[in-house]
Structures are given as C-alpha cells and as structure tokens.
C-alpha cells in the first residue's frame, strides 16, 4: 500500500495493463476525497497535537475473484486512488503478485529511492562547517 500511495497514475495504469487476465473490479466504496487531521509532537517527541489537515483520497474495490482492496493517499486523485485499490486487491492473488512486484513495486521503489538520494545529495553539498574565531581581547 505504501508503494501504491506514491505511484503516479501512469505507473499504476502501466502495472494494471500488463496483468493478464485484467482484473475486473467493482467499487465497494467509490473513490472519495476527504480530510485527515495531521499531528505533530510537542517539542518533536512529546505528547501529540493537531497541526492542520491534509486532503486525502480513498477508495475500496472488490475483484471478480473476491479480494477486497483499499487505498488511502494524500491529495485529490480519484483515478489514482481507484487504480491503487485495484492493484492492492490484485496483489493478494499469487497469480498477479510476481507481475505487480516486477512492474510496480520495484520500479516505483527505485524511482522514489533515486529521488530521495538526489534530494539528500543536493542538501549534502550545502553541509557547512562553522569555525569560531578567537577574539584578540586577552
């Protein structure tokens, strides 16, 4: 589900398109946009407090073969949420699992890791060593 929540619509569509036979899904809960209240911790590690809300899209589907799939993801993206729910349900079927790992989980995980690495490397170039100057008073 973590991968499904971050995959783009194109990545989800591509992964679904290669599944043979293509899973048929009916909505258990049509994709819906709502809010989740985000929380922080006092002082970064203490008791929780409410920071503010975020938009979240969720969907739930059932495959013709009986599996139920859910998705919850940040933002307003009904198509993406429905696709994610279908793939989450399909992932529960051993027949689909290998294809989903190969065409969705691995490439998306790799893209996310590259993006993360590139972001951290850019930040690392701005790592600073401050020197304290000795003042000549004494």
């Amino acid at each position, binding site marked *: 589900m973590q991968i499904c929540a971050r995959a783009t619509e194109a990545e989800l569509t591509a992964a679904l398109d290669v599944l043979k036979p293509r899973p048929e899904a009916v909505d258990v809960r049509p994709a819906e946009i709502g809010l989740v209240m985000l*929380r922080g*911790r006092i002082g970064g590690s203490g*008791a929780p407090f*409410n920071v503010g809300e*975020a938009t979240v899209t969720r969907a739930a589907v059932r495959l013709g073969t009986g599996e139920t799939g859910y998705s919850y993801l*940040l933002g307003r993206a009904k198509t993406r949420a429905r696709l994610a729910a279908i793939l989450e349900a399909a992932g529960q079927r051993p027949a689909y699992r290998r294809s989903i790992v190969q065409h969705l989980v691995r490439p998306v995980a790799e893209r996310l890791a590259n993006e993360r690495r590139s972001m951290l490397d*850019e930040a690392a170039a701005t790592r600073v060593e401050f020197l304290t100057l000795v003042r000549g008073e004494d």
Partner: protein
Amino acid sequence: MYVAVKGGEAAIAAAHALLDKERRGDPTVPALTTEQIREQLALAVDRVTCEGSLYDRDLAALAIKQARGDLIEAVFLLRAYRSTLPRFGYATPIETGAMAIRRRISATFKDLPGGQVLGPTFDYTHRLLDDGLNDQVPAAELTHKIAHDEAAVPHVANLLGAQGLIEQNPEVEIGAPVGDLTRDPLAFPADRDLRLQSLARGDEGLLLALGYSTQRGYGRTHPFAGEIRMGHVEVHLAPEELGFEVSLGEIVVTECEMVNQFKGSAESPPQFTRGYGLAFGHSERKAMSMALVDRALRARDLGEEVIAPAQDEEFVLSHVDNVQATGFVEHLKLPHYVDFQAELQLVRQMRREWEEANRKEAAE
C-alpha cells in the same frame, strides 16, 4: 451590527466580472498557470497551506491565483473548501526525528551529530535584486555530494536533555484526548496542545510581531534557535476499517525548537526550557515565531509573571486567526445603514442637549 439589504444584483454581477478582468491583468501577458504558482511561488503556497490549515499545495496555488495574490483571501478560500469535506480520521503523529532533511541548522552548537545543512536558504544572500531573473537565465549548476547514510538525525535539544539541563518534553499518554479546535470552540485556559494548534494555523505576521516583542523585552524569554529543520516526513493513518496503519505519502514541514533560559522556581531547578514551532512546507519565519510565542505562552505553567501581550493566551489565541480577524474587520464594509441612522439620531440628540445646557449656563 448590520442589517440585511436587498437589491444591487446587477451591480454585484458587474463588479465580479470586473474582478475577473483585473485578475487576468494585461491580456497580452501570458496567463499564469497554477502549476507555475505551485512550483515558482512555493513559499506563498506554503504560507497559504499553513494558515489555511490544509496541506494541499495544488489547491493553495489555485486559491492564490483566484485571490489575485491576496494571501489572506487565499487562506479564506482554503478554509471554506475544507469545511465541505468529510474527515477520515486523525493521522499518527509525524516523527520529525526521522525526517529526510533538506535543511538543518543550530545556533547553539557548532558541531552536532548529523551536521549542519544550509539547504535552499535566503540566509547569506546579499539581498540585491537580481536582474538575471528578468531573463530566462538557466539555473546555476547544482553541486551534489554523497549524503552520509544516516538513519535518523537526533534533535539538538535532546543533547542537553541527556545532561538534565533542559526540561523534558511533556510525556505521551497513550489514548489521552488531543484538543481539536476545529471540533470544539476554544476555551480558556487552553492546554499546550490547543495553543500549538491555534498557533500553527495562526497569522505569520501577528506571530512574528509577538515573537519580536518578546525579544525586545515584553515578556523576555532569552531564546536561542536550538534547531531548525526542514524536510520530508511520512504521514500514517490507521483507518478504522483496516485496523492497521497505512502510509499516505510524504509532506514537507519546518520545525523549530527554541531553547530558553529559565532561572528556576520552587519546583524546578534552573535549566533550559523549550518553545516549539511546526509549520507546513518551508516556513521558517513562521516556525521560529511560533516557537517564541509558544514559550511566551507557557509563562503561567512555569510560574512566571504574566506581564506582556505575548504571554496572555486569551489575547494571543483570540487574535491570531487571520480569517476570523479579517472577517470582523472587513464586515465593517457591509451596509450598516440602520445602525448608523440610530447612532446619528443619538448624536443629534446629545448635541441638542449639550447646546441647550450651554445656553442655559450662559444665560445664568
């Protein structure tokens, strides 16, 4: 008080059409896309997500465009939008200790575990207008350095905590209720969780001024920026129907921990105390101001004398919300004709009485 009026439909429709025209500006200049606003006016977008109390950068960009760049109007639009949506639940608290850090600095320790990372900052720029931005100059070549593989970068204040020189953060009571001012109206005295929620959505300008006032001596708290960090954190939710936690994706937040001198009280030894700020996006001024005001508002809890506006929670929390503030200030524009007629009559009557009294006095 204003009284409802009727009429004016045609004029109002024409005014809105004129607003649309003004929003577009000179039609020979290409129109802005909301993607351009989201990507290139990112800090305005971040501010609107903070004060609109809604993390959705696309919507914030749209709101900024619709509001013609009036950020408080944009905040108002986001707040109105959020009130139309159902709430799915409360997320698990984000762990800023596990942040993928893009910026992290400390003004208290030069060398600290995890290091200091400047990130994308206006600090150390010369504040000279850059003519190059008028032309389509390609961005400067970026430097990359292999980042150390650090799992988690510890919070700076906890370095002092290990030596007992700083107060502990309030303990987590599992399942204890967390105040939510979007559900229950604010009542005083307010606990720190509610105060922080209120400050997190509060107006940056007011927080900045109040934070500044504490530095200038109105409720002095001797602050140091223990740490400021900005980066990506993961958001988790445990939906009821699933019964387990799922990752919703990542958000960007800025966190500031102020470390403040405290001379001690009957109960507590002299030690450092903490003020905390957390804001959506890259919102450094907001997070710093919030941390200053959070600490000032703890005066009562810490047994300090409440003498300054920034320490007065009723004053601060009642005025920090810019949607409420603008609503009440701007409602003065609405027709107050009946109200004003009554006042006018009253002043006329008082004037007559005053003149009569003066005449009598002169005659005597």
